[in-house]
């Protein structure tokens, strides 16, 4: 029977909005005096005045949250900005207390809301390991025991006795994460800390997080990187406006989240300066969709990949050619989609036009991709070229593939016909 390690009951957290206080006693006195004489608040911003009396107005960052976490679960918390993810992690990490409700925990919690909290530039790498370890609840003896392992993991052995102010930001982050990775807590809480560091480092971190949960420890993970979430978690909780709107398998939760996401995958190209071509016609906007209704920037294998591209031409162009190249994050061109191949031409361009490109049932491996756009006249004279015009992400999940896809093993996912001959 799985053991419940975290139990959250009726958890709410509110913050007072508007008049939190001006931060100084003198100003608050002034404000009180103005109010007393029936004058407007001298420190209210002008555009706030319309909202009437904001005093005492509260915002509920979390509202009546209830869930339990079992030992060994890797739980991903998903939600758009302001949904309450960080507040939840802050309460679990004891950085702040709940307004209502109770959180009960078994075992030691280590939280990684930031990499390298308390690092001091004047201290050497080794000294900072001790300090950071202690801040995160390790005893000196514990750090000493794990020192070699930490140094090894960080990959900065050579500079371990150099003050960290001389470190590159990459080394700094690697060292800091190395400490965090060796805290050996029963419950590890990780906020969006992996946004820093290069791809190799991020991979290492995610592997470590995976290891931790395989060892039977519990992980709670917050990230905007849906691919990482699907890779490292098995359960997902979707928060929206401080409430749980979905709790279940991570793939389902991610899918649910992506379906409510809007505005991502919509790029204004009119102000891009890094472009070439004579500019007779120019790209002004690019949008990615998976269906005619929703604008998204994240897809699963099997989704339709739809691009809608706006063009403006400054003169009448009888016939134009167009194409887009999809390039993986490590620079491999995956597709070169050329209008000509489909027998499509930009006929009689004059003023604004809009083009839709549909790649049905796309089969690209999980990862990040960017798209280069180009447009030329009938003599192949370039009118507009933009590299890296729009980006999209393919993540694990969907109904087409149920095994884990390693982005290092292939670029395009094909299902061959298999049969047994003898």
């Amino acid at each position, binding site marked *: 029977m799985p053991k419940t390690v975290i139990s959250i009951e009726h958890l709410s957290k509110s913050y007072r909005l508007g008049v939190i*206080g001006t931060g100084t*006693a003198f100003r608050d006195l002034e404000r009180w005096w103005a109010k007393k004489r029936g004058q407007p608040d001298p420190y209210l911003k002008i555009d706030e005045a319309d909202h009437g009396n904001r005093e005492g107005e509260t915002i509920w960052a979390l509202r009546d949250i209830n869930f339990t976490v079992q030992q060994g679960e890797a739980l991903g918390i998903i939600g758009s900005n302001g949904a309450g993810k960080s507040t939840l992690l802050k309460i679990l990490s004891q950085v702040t207390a*709940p307004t209502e409700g109770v959180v009960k*925990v078994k075992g*030691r919690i280590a*939280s990684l809301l930031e990499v390298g909290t308390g690092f001091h530039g004047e201290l050497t790498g080794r000294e900072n390991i001790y300090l950071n370890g202690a801040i995160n609840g390790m005893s*000196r003896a514990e750090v000493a025991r794990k020192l070699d392992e930490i140094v090894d993991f960080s990959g900065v052995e050579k500079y371990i006795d150099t003050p960290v102010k001389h470190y590159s930001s990459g080394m700094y982050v690697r060292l800091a994460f190395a400490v965090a990775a060796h805290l050996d807590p029963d419950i590890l809480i990780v906020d969006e800390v992996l946004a820093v560091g290069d791809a190799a480092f991020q991979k290492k971190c995610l592997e470590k997080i995976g290891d931790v949960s395989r060892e039977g420890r519990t992980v709670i993970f917050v990230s905007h990187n849906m691919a990482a979430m699907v890779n490292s978690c098995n359960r997902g909780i979707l928060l929206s406006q401080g409430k749980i709107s979905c709790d279940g398998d991570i793939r389902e939760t991610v899918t649910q989240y992506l379906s409510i996401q809007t505005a991502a995958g919509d790029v204004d190209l009119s102000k891009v300066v890094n472009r070439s071509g004579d500019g007779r016609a120019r790209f002004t906007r690019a949008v990615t969709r998976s269906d005619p209704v929703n604008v998204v920037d994240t897809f699963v294998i099997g989704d339709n990949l739809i691009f809608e591209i706006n063009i403006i031409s400054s003169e009448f162009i009888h016939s134009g050619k167009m194409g887009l190249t999809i390039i993986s994050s490590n620079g491999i061109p995956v597709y070169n989609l050329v209008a000509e191949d489909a027998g499509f031409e930009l006929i009689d361009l004059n003023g604004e036009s809009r083009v839709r490109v549909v790649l049905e049932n796309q089969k690209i491996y999980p990862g990040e991709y960017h798209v280069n756009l180009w447009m030329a006249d009938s003599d192949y004279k370039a009118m507009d070229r933009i590299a890296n015009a729009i980006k999209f992400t393919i993540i694990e999940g969907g109904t087409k593939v149920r095994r884990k896809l390693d982005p290092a093993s292939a670029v395009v996912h094909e299902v061959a016909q298999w049969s047994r001959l003898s």
Partner: protein
Amino acid sequence: MPVSGNITLCKIMTTRTASAKKLKSNEKWDLILRPQRGWWDLRLGELWRYRDLVGLFVWRDFVTYYKQTILGPLWYIIQPILTTVVFTVIFGNIAKLPTDGLPAFLFYLSGNTVWTYYSTCLVSTSNTFAANAAIFGKVYFPRMVIPLSIVISNLISFAIRLGVFLAFLLYFMASGSAIHLTLWVLALPALLLIMAGMGLGLGVIISSLTTKYRDLQQLVGFGVQLLMYATPVIYPLSTVQGALRWVILANPMTAVVEVFRLGFLGTSSVDPLSLLYSVGFTLVVMLIGLLIFNRVEATFMDTV
């Protein structure tokens, strides 16, 4: 799920958390987070578990201070000497305040040495929340670790100042001044404990009250300066007479400064027993500080 052997413990937990509904009586939780901690839920055991962190903070302050600047340690020597020279000229030579028959320079230096430790403890701990908001916002450890380590770190600069004082003391003794050590020298550790405790207690109270109003912080430096004039730092207790004497005696720092002089310089008009008053005051202030700090630390991040 049955958890054997914890039945008694759980009973205690249930009574302590009676307000929490749905608590299963057969489960033992290591940590229970709720909106407000009890007044007496001081978690001193947890503070003890983090003692290595206190040590590391002290060590960090020490190491970074000496790594950064060569003038740092030197400043600890220059500052008291310069202050004392100014005091000697203004209060001794111009205002002609009496110094209990002691060499004026040594008199002011002794007062300055003691007072500086106390005032730095008070001022730097009173800034705990505001100065550490960045780290407090990202990781949990008992917040009391910070003021505690500040008070201990300050002992290092005190030791340097004390060294300066002792050097001058030896010089004056060798040149035949009428000073002699008394057994009250041995009270020095107790004096330090009183100053550390009182500075910490008051500082922590102020820091708890100033989480909302940062400008009150500016009053602290000013207040400490005023407090110095209510303490026999630049004048001996023996010159204060009448009703004013009671005001000065009501100041718990008076006995500390005077007993220090009694020990190292051999002259003072203080009744050493008034130290007991200082001890009592310190204990009360520390308790109040601990209680208020404990109330504030859980949610101060929301107001900073």
